[in-house]
């Protein structure tokens, strides 16, 4: 759903006169919503600009995206980057976003408690 939302916003912003570029890891959803410019990385959802604590990988992906910003000349283009999540194990592709994959949404009381705890940390 994130990919659809981002693509919809990009189209509105682009129509208002500001060039946009969308990152994507869900190629079929991005193809469907059809934003002006997109860069695809075949990583599990939640890692569109790389793995945690790997700043060099993140830097390369984001740098490639900025480069694509100026090389894409055809509206609706999706540049596919060659990064591979794990060269020895592609099993994530079979399990990402399948049944039982997402955790249950916490009950409201737990969410309120977590939020109060976080906000408490930043009270002046």
């Amino acid at each position, binding site marked *: 759903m994130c990919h659809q939302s981002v693509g919809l916003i990009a189209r509105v912003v682009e129509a208002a006169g500001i060039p946009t570029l969308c990152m994507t890891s869900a190629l079929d959803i991005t193809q469907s919503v059809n*934003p002006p410019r997109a860069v695809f990385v*075949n990583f599990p959802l939640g890692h569109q*600009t790389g793995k945690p604590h790997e700043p060099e990988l993140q830097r390369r992906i984001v740098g490639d995206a900025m480069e694509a910003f100026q090389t894409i000349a055809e509206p609706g283009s999706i540049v596919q980057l060659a990064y591979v999540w794990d060269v020895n194990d592609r099993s994530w592709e079979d399990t990402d976003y399948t049944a039982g994959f997402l955790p249950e949404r916490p009950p409201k009381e737990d969410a309120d408690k977590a939020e109060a705890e976080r906000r408490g940390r930043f009270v002046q």
Partner: protein
Amino acid sequence: MPVQYIPRTRELYSDFAPYRWVVNADTPPWTPLAKPISQCKVALMSSGGILYRDQPRFHREDASYRRIPKAATQAELDVWHFGYLTKDAKADHNCVFPLARMRELETEGMIGELADPAYSFMGGIYSGRKVRDELAPKIVDELKRARVDAFYLVPA
């Protein structure tokens, strides 16, 4: 092979009527980049549900957004989203909100300037109409006020 997320979503929510994804078969809107990216003021937005310090969390079908100061640190950011596994993004926001990397690209001169603030919302919104007609115009206003030259969006 890229994962086909549209059929996966259909299976995951098989108890419900199939979700009708937005299909845009037209040529998308187009505004050419006016100058090299190294001279552009670039704004960053993530749909990963990023929160700064004491900002309120996102709710279901929440089409609001948050302003995230450009200088925000990892310790000042949290994640509130139930449409993806947030463990890695919580540990390092740069997985879905590459704020630190964009600051580095600004320092290196690869981009002209990183706009302040950056933006975040919770992208798991079923109503495409709500995103298009309520949220997107507000973002356009923000970007115009900030005189942004280019807009970089990262889903989660």
